[in-house]
């Protein structure tokens, strides 16, 4: 990924899947890496089963907190239906994470989906892995060892898909 270009990541899913936590962790990691970060989301419905989306942008200088259609590099979707709904935001060359939802079945608990996807995302971005771990542990205070392990599994899987 070109360092001077703004990276646009759209996180989406439904209430309770950890959409907002995932984008928070990614935002903190990007900030620690020295980027200007903008994140925008809606609170309130997040824990009530409704659609949840969080726009995350980082780069040298970011203006709008919202991503425009056809402008997302990554659609980190935790739900197939939500991915379909948000598809218009993804660039033609962008990466749709809903194709990896099958991998999640191998996790010991679906609650780790956001951590696993962050691992895959980290494998695609030029942010030091230590910064990711710092960010992860600053937000996820429960089961830190478990989350760290799942993150690393996601990272390894992510590397394997890009090397293909």
């Amino acid at each position, binding site marked *: 990924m070109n360092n001077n270009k703004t990276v646009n990541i759209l996180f989406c899913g439904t209430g309770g899947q950890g959409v907002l936590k995932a984008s928070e962790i990614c935002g903190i990691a990007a900030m620690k890496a020295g980027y200007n970060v903008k994140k925008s989301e809606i609170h309130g419905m997040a824990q009530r089963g409704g659609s949840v989306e969080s726009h995350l942008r980082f780069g040298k200088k970011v203006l709008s907190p919202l991503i*425009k259609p056809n402008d997302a590099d990554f659609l980190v979707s935790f739900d197939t239906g939500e991915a379909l709904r948000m598809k218009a935001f993804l660039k033609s060359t962008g990466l749709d994470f809903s194709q990896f939802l099958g991998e999640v079945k191998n996790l010991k608990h679906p609650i780790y989906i956001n951590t696993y996807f962050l691992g895959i995302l980290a494998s695609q971005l030029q942010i030091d892995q230590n910064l990711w771990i710092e960010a992860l542990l600053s937000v996820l205070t429960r089961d830190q060892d478990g989350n760290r392990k799942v993150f690393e599994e996601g990272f390894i899987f992510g590397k394997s898909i890009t090397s293909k």
Partner: protein
Amino acid sequence: MQKNNFYSKINDKSSLKEVSTLFLSGDEALGRGAYESGLRVACAYPGTPSTEIVQHLSGYDEIDAQWSVNEKVAFEVALGAAVGGARSLYACKHVGLNVAMDPLMTSAYTGINAGFIIVVCDDPGLHSSQNEQDTRWVSIYAKLPLIEPSSPSEAYECVKEAFLISEKFDTPVIIRLTTRVAHSKENVNCGIRTEIPVKNLPLDISKYVMVPGNAYKRHIQVEKRIEDLSKYSEKTILNTVEKLDSGLGFITSGVSYLYVKENYPDASVLKLSLTYPFCDKKIIDFAKSVKKVVVIEELDPFLENHVRELGIDFICKDSSFKTGELKPEYIPLIVEGQKKVEKPSGARKPVLCQGCPHRFVFTALRKLKTYVSGDIGCYTLGATPPLSSLHTCVCMGAGVTIHEGLRRAHPDNKKIVGVIGDSTFIHSGITGLINAVYNDAKGVIIILDNSTTAMTGGQDHPATGRNITGKQAHKLVLENLVSSCGVNNVDVLSPYNYKEFENLIKQRLSEDSLSVIIAREPCRLVNRDRKPAPQYDQSKCKKCGICLSIDCPGISKTENGFIQVNTELCTGCNLCVHVCSPKALRIHE
């Protein structure tokens, strides 16, 4: 110290003290800027998207922060602190400001002693609100200066400037955020706090006692003040001209500025942050300096109307853009004079959480075929199909008063019920209840007591017995309060006792009196204890769909028409068991 919020915001207080770059939302950044400005008192009633301002401020030991009982109370306490000589801040959502309009209008006359900031967060797109009002008009109506930051960093900077303006011009200052500023996050470079000493109590009866003679003289001062502020508006760094291209020039404010820059990085921009009073000369000069002027703003034609008054020829949005949120991709459409084409969002609708006690109440009310006046809170979701058992929702407190009005229109209809949440009842349901008793109204009011302010993220209130910092506070006992209002029939029952609860409503509906039922069961986001999911015997299932009609996220229909219980989601509340007449669902043994 226990914090009851669903979203814990500040894990480590030590990080708040340092000079550092923090990843802050607009709400938090504004709070931080106020803290550094020597703020001492902060008051609010929770309301999306403004809640996190005072929530954030409650993390600082130097600040006396509170969840007030309602917005009027919050405004008056904060104003009192400012009159008393301490820098203070009041925060609310747009509709919250309506509740505080009475003190707001006259505080414009009294002015302040120490700096006083009114923060209001508008919600274009109604992400979590009952209307889409544009608060900028209040600045004209009340003759108060209005500041609109476009990002969290600007919110941090603007509040510091706002305190200076407040004290220089002896005026409350309105800072208006919108959802995309309040709930956006970015890197904010933070500094340290400057202590501002508390001033003496002001001995100036003619300034602070608003009786006709005094108030008339103050009104003269208010008019002079707004003229002085107009002059200030011309020279302040809050209103800046970015002169680039001499062809296209935008006049804009708030988050719209960022959308303009995103789409037209080379265009000239007049960026208004001290939006009101308007900087007429700056606007006219800017318009002359470019070939084509475009005014970009969200919601109402606030800037447009004024720019038009100045005799400037400009392009503005088609009226289709007046409703809903402005989005970055709309800007080129507006410049080209196109209409908004809205596609249905297809967003999944929110539902009451699995195990939510409100679902029991609405299931019973639907079965009893009642007409229900509702109120503001999670329970407004009782209106969504298939529950469809809440029929009105207007504003905070109206669950009680609309109920009375409905009964006055239909004195003999005993099937009318009012519902209101615990926090909402304390906010503004009490006066309505006293009114009902005093005027001999009949009917049934249900207080949906989930022991928290759930919709805004689980804030404490007087009946939880804890204050904003989680410290123990005097616990208001709702049943005692309701009795003191003069209601004779007061019942307290958990709706989880489903049959008993349904029978209780049925009995109270049959009587010719005023009853209050307190449906007490903690919110599932407060009490997360779970019981095993019910067992399902497919052979007994008649595929009647009654279990699906309670709209529980934990139950879904299978392809062959039977149902399945999602054991990951199920909290074991067993409402589905209560409604399943063929007894295909039964309590886990």
